[in-house]
C-alpha cells in the first residue's frame, strides 16, 4: 500500500535530490543542526532591546526631509515633557520651586539631552518682556534673588506675585506653566540620533533616568508626570518583558493541544521543539545581522513560532498517516483498519516527499510577502520585514528538514492504541466533512460565492473607515490606565498647549527678518490663516513676537502692534530674539511657524496640513519637494545675483514637531496600507501559480485571503484600533499565515483531483486527511495569541484579538470558500457527484 500511495506521484529530480540531501546521512544533518543551534543560541543571548525615534519615521518623506534639515537648529520632535504638579493645585510654595529647580538641573544631566534646549521657568532661555516708561525691560521669569534651594532662603508672597506676573508676561502659561498654576513643565529635547556619526540614543537608559527623577521627587505633595518618546519606549519595553511570560504560556497551550490531537508526548514535543529552534535561530540571525529587537517587534518571535507549529502539525499529520496506515488516511475506517503501518524512517521520508512542495510553497510565499514589505521606507517596518523573512526562511529548514529527520528516529509507544484512537478520531468528524463537502457542489457553491462577495463588499465599505494614526491622548501602545497615558491626560488637561505641535519652517533670504518686510508679512499672514483652521489652538511666530516688540518700542501702545515696513525699525523689533527662542535660526533665514494643535487625530492633522498646502499653493510660496530655498537664496545673495527689490521669496516647508512626524507617518501608512496587501497577494498568487501551474487555482487560494483581510480591517474599525505602523503589519502577517490553510487543503485536493476523482469527493478526502490538522493548527495559534488579551501592553492585547480573528477566520474561509471557488473556477463543467 505504501508503494501505491507514493507511486501516485513519481518523484522528480528535485524531490530525489532533496530527499538524498536530507535523508542521505541523517546523523550529519542532526550534528549540523546541533552546531548551528549552539552557535545561534550564543548570539541570540546577546540580543538587546533597541529602539530608535528615527526608525519609526519615513525619512524620505517630504516632511521628514525638513525635519532632518532643521533638527540641529530647532529640534522639538523628539521631546520629553516632565510636568511637576503640586497636589494641592497651587505651585506658589517654596518646596515646589525647590523641586522644580532641582528637576531642571537633573533633566539637564540626563544622557543625550541637548542642554541648551532644556526649557523651564528656571532656564535662561525662557524670558519675559515688559513695557516700562518709554522702552521695555526683559528678564528671566525667576528673579536672580529668588534662590529656593539656598539654605536660609525664605520666599515671600511678593516674590511669588512677581514670578506669577513674569510668567504671564513671558506668555508661557499653558505651555511651561499649568493654566491654573498648579504646576510647571520641563521640556527636554534629545540630541538628534545620528548613527553614522556615532550618536546613538539609548532610550531605555534615558527612561531609567526619567524614572529615577520621578522616584526621587514624587511624594505626598508633588506629582511628576513624564511623557515623550523616550519614556514611552521605556514603558513599552518594561511591558514587553511580560512577553516572555506569554511566550511560555503559548508554548504550554500549544503543546497541550498538540498532545490532545496526536495523543503522543513525543510528537507534540518534537513539533514544539522544532518551532522553538526556528525562533532561536531567528533571534541569533538578527544579532548576526547587527539588529537589536525593537519593542514594537517583540511579537515577531511569536509569529515565527506560530508559523513553525502550523507547518510542523501538517508534517506530524502526514507522518502519522504513514506510520498508522501506510499512507493517506483515505477511505472508510474499515478499509483503513485493514491497512498496515510502515516503519518510521519510510514514514518520515514519505511525509517529507508529500509536503516538500506545499510546505515550501507556503513558506516561500510568506517569505516573499514579508520581503515585499521591505520597499516601505520606514526603518522599523524594514526591520520587521527582515525579522519575519529570516524567521520564515529558517522555518523551512526546521520544519521540512529537522522535523522529518527527527521523526524518522521516533518510535511511538502503544502504537496499536494510538492507531485505534486515530481511527475513532477520523470517523468522528465524518458528518462534518460530509456537510462541508457539499459546499463544493454547484448550487451551494454559488450561494457561498454570492454571500462571500456580499460580505466582502460590506466589509470593504466598513473597513474603509479604518482610522489612520490614533486619537487618544498618550499612546495607543499602552493601556488607557497605564501611568504614561494617565500622565498624558493630566498634561494635556493642565497645559493645553505644548503637547501636539506642528512646525512649518519658512525659508527665506539671508537676514529675512530684518531686510524683508514682504517675507515677514507673508509669514505673519500664513500664521493667521493657520490660526483660523479648526483644531489649531495657538500659533507662535517671529513676526507675531516682533509686532509686540514694536509696540513695546512705542511705549507699549497696542495701536503700534504692526510689522514695521522699513528695515531699520524692523531690525529694532527682531534683533532682541536669540536663536534659543526657537523662533529663528542664526541669520533668520529660517523661521518656524509653531502651531499648537488641540489633538493629534488624523482628521485634525489632515485638515491643518490641507490648509497649509492650500495656502502655500495660493501664495506661490513652496519650492516643492525637498528644496532648501534658504541655501539657494544664500548662494544667490553671495553671488551678488540679487534683483532690485530684494530676494523676497518664501518657502513654507512641512513639517517638524511631533505632529509633523505623525503627519508624515500617516501619509506613508495611507500610501502603503493597500500596497503592502497587493504585494502580499501578488507574492502568494505567483507562488501558487508556479507550484500549481494554474492561475485559476492561485485565485482559489488568494480570494479567500482578500475577504479575510477586509474583515480584519472591519474589525479594526469595530475595535477602534487605528492603522499605524505597528498595526499595518499585523494584517500583512495575518495574510502570510492565513495562506497556509488554503495551500495545504488545495495541495491535498489537487492530489486527489489528479488521481481522477470528482471535485466533491476530492474535497471530502482532503478534509478528512488534513481538515483536523488545519482545524487544530488554527486552534493552536488562536489560543496562543488569544492569551495576549491579558497583556500589559494594549498594543499586544489588540494584536492578540486581531491575530486570533485572522487565524480562525482564515481557516474558516479556506474551508468554506476554497471549495466553492474551485467548483466555479476549476471545474465549472463537472457534474456534481
Amino acid at each position, binding site marked *: 500500500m505504501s508503494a501505491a500511495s507514493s507511486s501516485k506521484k513519481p518523484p522528480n529530480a528535485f524531490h530525489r535530490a532533496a530527499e538524498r540531501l536530507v535523508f542521505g546521512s541523517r546523523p550529519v544533518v542532526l550534528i549540523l543542526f546541533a552546531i548551528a543551534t549552539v552557535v545561534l543560541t550564543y548570539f541570540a543571548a546577546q540580543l538587546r532591546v533597541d529602539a530608535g525615534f528615527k526608525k519609526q519615521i519615513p525619512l524620505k518623506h517630504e516632511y521628514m526631509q525638513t525635519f532632518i534639515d532643521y533638527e540641529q537648529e530647532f529640534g522639538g520632535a523628539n521631546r520629553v515633557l516632565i510636568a511637576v504638579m503640586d497636589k494641592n493645585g497651587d505651585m506658589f510654595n517654596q518646596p515646589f520651586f525647590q523641586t522644580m529647580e532641582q528637576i531642571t538641573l537633573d533633566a539637564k544631566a540626563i544622557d543625550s539631552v541637548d542642554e541648551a534646549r532644556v526649557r523651564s521657568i528656571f532656564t535662561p532661555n525662557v524670558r519675559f*518682556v515688559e*513695557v*516700562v*516708561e*518709554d*522702552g*521695555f*525691560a*526683559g*528678564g528671566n521669569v525667576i528673579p536672580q534673588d529668588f534662590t529656593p534651594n539656598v539654605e536660609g532662603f525664605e520666599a515671600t508672597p511678593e516674590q511669588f506675585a512677581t514670578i506669577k506676573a513674569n510668567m*504671564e508676561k513671558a506668555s508661557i502659561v499653558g505651555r511651561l506653566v499649568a493654566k491654573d498654576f498648579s504646576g510647571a513643565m520641563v521640556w527636554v529635547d534629545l540630541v538628534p540620533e545620528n548613527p553614522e556619526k556615532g550618536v546613538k540614543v539609548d532610550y531605555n537608559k534615558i527612561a531609567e533616568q526619567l524614572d529615577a527623577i520621578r522616584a526621587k521627587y514624587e511624594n505626598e505633595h508633588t506629582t511628576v508626570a513624564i511623557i515623550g518618546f523616550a519614556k514611552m519606549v521605556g514603558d513599552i519595553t518594561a511591558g514587553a518583558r511580560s512577553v516572555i511570560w506569554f511566550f511560555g504560556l503559548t508554548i504550554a497551550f500549544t503543546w497541550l493541544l498538540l498532545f490532545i490531537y496526536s495523543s503522543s508526548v513525543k510528537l507534540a514535543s518534537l513539533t514544539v521543539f522544532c518551532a522553538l529552534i526556528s525562533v532561536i535561530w531567528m533571534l541569533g540571525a538578527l544579532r548576526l545581522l547587527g539588529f537589536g529587537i525593537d519593542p514594537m517587534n517583540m511579537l515577531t518571535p511569536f509569529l515565527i513560532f506560530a508559523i513553525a507549529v502550523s507547518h510542523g502539525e501538517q508534517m506530524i499529520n502526514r507522518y502519522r498517516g504513514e506510520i498508522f496506515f501506510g499512507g493517506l488516511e483515505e477511505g472508510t475506517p474499515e478499509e483503513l483498519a485493514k491497512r498496515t503501518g510502515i516503519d518510521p524512517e519510510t514514514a518520515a521520508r514519505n511525509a517529507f516527499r508529500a509536503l516538500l512542495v506545499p510546505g515550501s510553497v507556503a513558506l516561500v510565499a510568506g517569505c516573499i510577502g514579508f520581503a515585499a514589505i521591505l520597499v516601505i521606507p520606514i526603518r522599523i517596518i524594514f526591520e520587521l520585514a527582515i525579522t519575519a523573512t529570516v524567521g520564515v526562511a529558517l522555518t523551512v529548514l526546521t520544519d521540512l528538514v529537522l522535523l522529518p529527520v527527527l521523526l524518522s528516529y521516533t518510535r511511538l509507544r502503544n502504537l496499536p492504541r494510538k492507531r485505534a484512537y486515530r481511527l475513532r478520531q477520523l470517523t468522528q468528524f465524518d458528518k462534518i466533512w460530509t456537510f462541508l463537502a457539499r459546499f463544493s457542489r454547484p448550487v451551494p457553491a454559488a450561494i457561498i460565492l454570492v454571500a462571500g462577495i456580499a460580505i466582502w463588499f460590506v466589509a470593504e465599505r466598513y473597513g474603509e473607515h479604518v482610522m489612520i494614526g490614533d486619537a487618544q491622548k498618550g499612546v495607543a501602545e499602552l493601556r488607557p490606565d497605564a501611568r504614561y497615558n494617565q500622565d498624558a491626560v493630566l498634561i494635556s488637561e493642565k497645559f493645553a498647549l505644548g503637547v501636539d505641535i506642528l512646525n512649518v519652517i519658512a525659508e527665506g533670504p539671508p537676514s529675512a527678518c530684518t531686510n524683508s518686510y*514682504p*517675507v515677514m*508679512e*507673508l509669514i505673519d*499672514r500664513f500664521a*493667521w*490663516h493657520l*490660526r*483660523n483652521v479648526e483644531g489649531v489652538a495657538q500659533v507662535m511666530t517671529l513676526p507675531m513676537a516682533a509686532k509686540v*516688540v514694536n509696540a513695546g*518700542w*512705542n*511705549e*507699549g*501702545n*497696542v*495701536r*503700534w*502692534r*504692526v510689522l514695521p*515696513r*522699513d528695515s*531699520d525699525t524692523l531690525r*529694532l523689533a527682531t*534683533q*532682541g530674539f536669540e536663536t534659543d527662542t526657537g523662533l529663528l535660526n542664526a541669520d533668520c533665514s529660517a523661521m518656524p511657524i509653531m502651531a499648537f494643535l488641540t489633538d493629534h487625530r488624523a482628521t485634525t492633522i489632515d485638515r491643518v496640513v490641507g490648509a497649509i*498646502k492650500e495656502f*502655500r*499653493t495660493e501664495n*506661490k*510660496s*513652496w*519650492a*516643492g*519637494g525637498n*528644496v532648501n*530655498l534658504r541655501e539657494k537664496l544664500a548662494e544667490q545673495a553671495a553671488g551678488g545675483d540679487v*534683483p532690485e*527689490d530684494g*530676494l*523676497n*521669496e*518664501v*518657502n513654507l516647508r512641512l513639517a517638524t514637531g511631533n505632529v509633523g512626524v505623525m503627519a508624515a507617518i500617516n501619509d506613508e501608512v*495611507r*500610501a502603503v496600507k*493597500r*500596497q503592502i496587501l*497587493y504585494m502580499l497577494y501578488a507574492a502568494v498568487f505567483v507562488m501558487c501559480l508556479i507550484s500549481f501551474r494554474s492561475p485559476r487555482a492561485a485565485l482559489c487560494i488568494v480570494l479567500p485571503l482578500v475577504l479575510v483581510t477586509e474583515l480584519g480591517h472591519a474589525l479594526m474599525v469595530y475595535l477602534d484600533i487605528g492603522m499605524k505602523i505597528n498595526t499595518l503589519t499585523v494584517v500583512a502577517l495575518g495574510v502570510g499565515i492565513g495562506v497556509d490553510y488554503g495551500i495545504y487543503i488545495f495541495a491535498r485536493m489537487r492530489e486527489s483531483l489528479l488521481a481522477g476523482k470528482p471535485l466533491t469527493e476530492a474535497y471530502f478526502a482532503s478534509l478528512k486527511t488534513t481538515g483536523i490538522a488545519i482545524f487544530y493548527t488554527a486552534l493552536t495559534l488562536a489560543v496562543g495569541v488569544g492569551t495576549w488579551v491579558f497583556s500589559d501592553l494594549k498594543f499586544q492585547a489588540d494584536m492578540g484579538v486581531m491575530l486570533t480573528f485572522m487565524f480562525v477566520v482564515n481557516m474558516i474561509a479556506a474551508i468554506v470558500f476554497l471549495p466553492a471557488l474551485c467548483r466555479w473556477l476549476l471545474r465549472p463543467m463537472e457534474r456534481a457527484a
Partner: protein
Amino acid sequence: MPRLTTPSVSIVLALVFGASLASAEDKASLAPLAADPLARPTEVMPLADGTLVLDIARAGNRIVAVGERGHILYSDDGTAWTQAADVPLRSTLTAVAAIDGNIWAVGHDGVILHSANSGESWEIQRRDPRGQPAEGVDPDDIRQGAPLLDVLFTDLNHGIAIGAYSLLLETSDGGKHWSGGRIPTSASDAAADAEVAAESVDEQAAHASNDMQSSVFSADELKIGQESDPHLNAIARTESGGYVIVGERGAIFRSQDGGKLWERSQLPYDGSMFGIVGYEGQHVLAFGLRGHVFESNDLGVTWSERPTGSELSLMGGVPLANGGAIIVGANGIVLHRARDSEPLTTSTNTAAGVIAGVLPLDSDGTLLIASENGLSRFQPK
C-alpha cells in the same frame, strides 16, 4: 482596440495608488512676493472677532469695530459679529468714528477708509504707505507713511484725524479731501519746537542703540525734554466746542477755534497719554502710560492727577454721564467711576489681555471690550 488599454490601466493605477494621485493638487510654485502686500482687499476669517481689535464706536443702531489686517466688524447687538468683506486693504486700523450710517476708520499706512452704508462696504479716502506718498505729501517728510491713531467727526462733513509725528489731517467735505501735515501751532510754540528739535536727534539714536534687555529709561533720561514732533495719540472735543489732543511724553495740544490753530502745553507728567475723553464745558479726562490719569476743567491748562493704584498702561476709554468714565488698558484692567466725584475703582478682565477700546452695552453696566484677544463682553464689579 489597443487604445482601450490606456484608460483601463490608468483606472487600475488610480485604484491602487488613489491616495498618491489625490495629493497632486499641492503644486510647487515659487514667486517673488508683492512689495506692498497690504494693498489687497482684506480677508474674511472666522476668528476675526477673536484677534486684535483696537477701537469700537456706535454708528446709529449698529456697533462697528476695527482692528488688525483691515478687519472691520459690525453687529446690531454686540454679540454676533459680521466681518465686512468689502474692505479694499489690509492695513491695521486703529480708530473708528461714525455719524449715523457714515463711518470713518483710520490706521497704519496713513489709511482713511469710509463707509456710507453702516459698514458693509468701504472705500479708500486716503492711503500713504511708506515709499508710496499720498497726493500732496512730501516723500521726504517724516510724516510720510506715518500711522493715524485717532479720528473725530463733529458732523457729516467736518472731521480731524491725527497720528504719529504730530500728523494732523482735516476735512470739511466728509473726507473727499483730506489736507494737513504737521499740527498747526501758534508762533511761540514753533520757536520752542525748534529748540527741542536738536535734542531729539540724539535721543532717537540713544533709543535705537538700547538693546531690548536693558532698555529701562531712567528718570533723568525721561526728562530729556519734549519731542519736536510728538506722536498725537488721541483727540477729544468738549461740549464747549474746544479740542484737546494728548500725545507722546506728556504733550498736550488745545484748540478753541474749531481746530484751526493749536496751542501746545505740557502735562505735569512726562509720560505719554494714550487716550482722552471730553465732557460738559471745558472738562476733559486723559489717561495713558503706567496707570496715569489726569483731569482738567479748563481744557487742559491746569491738570490734577487722579490716583488709580495701578501701573498698567491705559489704552482707551469712554465718558459716562455726570463726569463718569470707563477706562481700559493692559492686562485686562478696567477702571470705572459713575460720576466725577467718585474715585476710580478697578476690576480685571484677565481673558481680554491688553484692552484697547470699550463701549457700554446695556443699562446694567455690561461693557463691550475690544482687546488683543478680540471682542468680548465684560461686567465690571
